[in-house]
């Protein structure tokens, strides 16, 4: 019986998720926005791994799920960054709030 209960991990993940979300929604720098999204995905991973150990039906599946998540996150980060670079090349900016030529 571990002395670290499941709920504590979950709360931690929740906090990280919220931090990531806040960053993604408010940070002006596009790179930070992308990184914040990575943080959100990390929070998910904590959940998955914690559930894999303390969940209702503990098993390796959670860990495998988080492996996939990590991979996908990496791919997403790479593509996001590539897009950002393409954009930067044209517009010379990475400020998210300046990317508004399409609106209304």
């Amino acid at each position, binding site marked *: 019986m571990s002395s670290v209960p499941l709920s504590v991990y979950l709360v931690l993940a929740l906090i990280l998720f919220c931090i990531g979300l806040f960053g*993604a*929604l408010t940070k002006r720098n596009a790179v930070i*926005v992308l990184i914040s999204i990575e943080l959100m995905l990390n929070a998910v991973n904590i959940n998955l791994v914690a559930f894999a150990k303390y969940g209702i039906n503990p098993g390796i599946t959670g860990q495998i799920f988080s492996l996939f998540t990590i991979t996908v996150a990496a791919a997403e980060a790479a593509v996001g960054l590539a897009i950002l670079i393409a954009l930067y090349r044209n517009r010379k900016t990475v400020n998210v709030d300046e*990317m*508004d030529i*399409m609106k*209304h």
Partner: protein
Amino acid sequence: MNPLIWIIPVLPLLSFVLLLLFGRRLKEASAHVGALLTLGSLVLSIVVLLNQWGGEPVKETLSWLTFGETTLSAGYLVNPLNALMLVIVSLVSFLVQVYSGGYMHDDDRFPIFFAYLGLFTFAMLGLVLSPNLLQLYVFWELVGVGSFLLIGYYFYKREARSAAKKAFIMTRIGDVGLFIGMILLFWQVGSFEFDEIFAAVEAGEISEGWITLTAILIFVGAIGKSGQFPLHTWLPDAMEGPTPVSALIHAATMVAAGVYLVAAMFPLFQASEAALTTVAVVGGFTAIFAATIGLAQADIKRVLAYSTVSQLGYMMLALGSSGYVAGVFHLTTHAFFKALLFLAAGSVIHAVHTQNIHEMGGLWKKMKWTAPLFLIGAMAISGVPGLSGFFSKDEILAATYADGRFGLFWIAVIAAFLTAFYMFRLFFLVFTGESRGIQEKVKESPVSMTFPMIVLGILALIGGLINTPFATYLSDFLAQNEALEIHHHETRWWIPVVATGVSLLGILMAWLVYVKKKVTRFSESAPDLHYILLNKYFIDETYDYSFVKGTRALSYFWYYIDRFVVEGLVGLVTGIVGWFSKIGSRFQNGQVQLYSSVAFAGMAILLLVVAWIGGYLT
């Protein structure tokens, strides 16, 4: 015989259709076509009348319209009253058409005029032949249209336009009364047929209240058509039409249709004392009311028009006093002498090209035929003994007296006096004295015009003989109708004396005022009263300010409601959608983080609400 009856109205219809289609080619011949076809009707009508003498009523119907389990029929009915009316209508119509051949000679829409006359005659004959209320209503309205078309014959005149419109609308107000009355009666009886209605009344199937209500409503129709107060104002205005039209429609036939209607529905009226009283009071009031207005008018046709209104009131008074025969009798004689008067007036107008009696005068010598004929007419209407009007008026007075409404009796007597006065005022101003206007070449009218006048003159002279106290042919004839209970009232000896007295007094007064000039004219002695009379008691103005302006105001009110409230609400809805659209697209400001924020906030709210509703937030 029977198969021929339906031809009577069809002949004028044929004339209408033919002239409408081929009038342009027929030109002058139109008058002949019209007159000949009407003559055919006349001849047939006389045959029918003779057949009715001692014969049985004839009724033929065809199914016309079915709904639910009910079948409405159309057809014709001949009874003594109808037969008499047929003859009057076709006779006057024929004479007027002959007359018009001369009178309208110069008009370039000559054929149309005769076409309209044909239409009118058709409608009038159809009305008379109707065996049921519905069919009567149909022709009733058609008659109105004929009248409307003919009043508006000089369509380019503004006055003609408004007079036509007024005539149609005023009579339509009355018609609605008839319409409602007829429908209510239908739901009481289950039929529009006269005989079935009378049978139901007889059998007491309808309650007293319903009888009174429907009878009065039907009488409202008669008020409109016969120009009774308060719907009388259109009739004098209708004089904007050509004079032969006035003679035919607005003197002899159509306006008498109201009287005819009451007469035809008489068993219904008889069953309700209140209805009869209404008829009598309205008639009596109209008789004296219109007579007073007639005193002050300057237009020859308007004087005659008010005279007509007044005389129609007389007839209503007679009917309302249960004087069925008196009413019908007066209707008949009135048709003769009033048509005569109008035709004579037309002849005068034809000659002097004015209608203002103050611009006439001294025509006695210039119009050898017209003047004596007019005199005959005037004497007849004034009730000079021996002429037709004397007998019929006498009958009315007797009936009124017998009915016991003494107030109305005295009103009738006064009206008789006034009638004599204004008729002879007219006569003296027009035919005696010196010429007051420019009348260089006044010529007597052609034969085509004088001939009908002579015929009518003879009838006005002797027409009264059909029902004298000594020989009650008409009474007996009408009494053949079994549905009626005709009262024979004893003629009191003093009534004819009083009648003769007042009429002679009236003539004398007129002679004193307008020939001898012994008595100051009314206009000078009582200018205020004269002013009121000249302006017809300001009834037109009152109507104008109340109903016409009121309707207009109401219309504008609704129009603005429509424009601003109804459309405004629509505008509001579209405005809200548009505003929402604008807000929505403003929100879409290109900031990607805003997009996500909105989405996330949406999710948070969603979760909160789920939690709240689900009761998990404890």
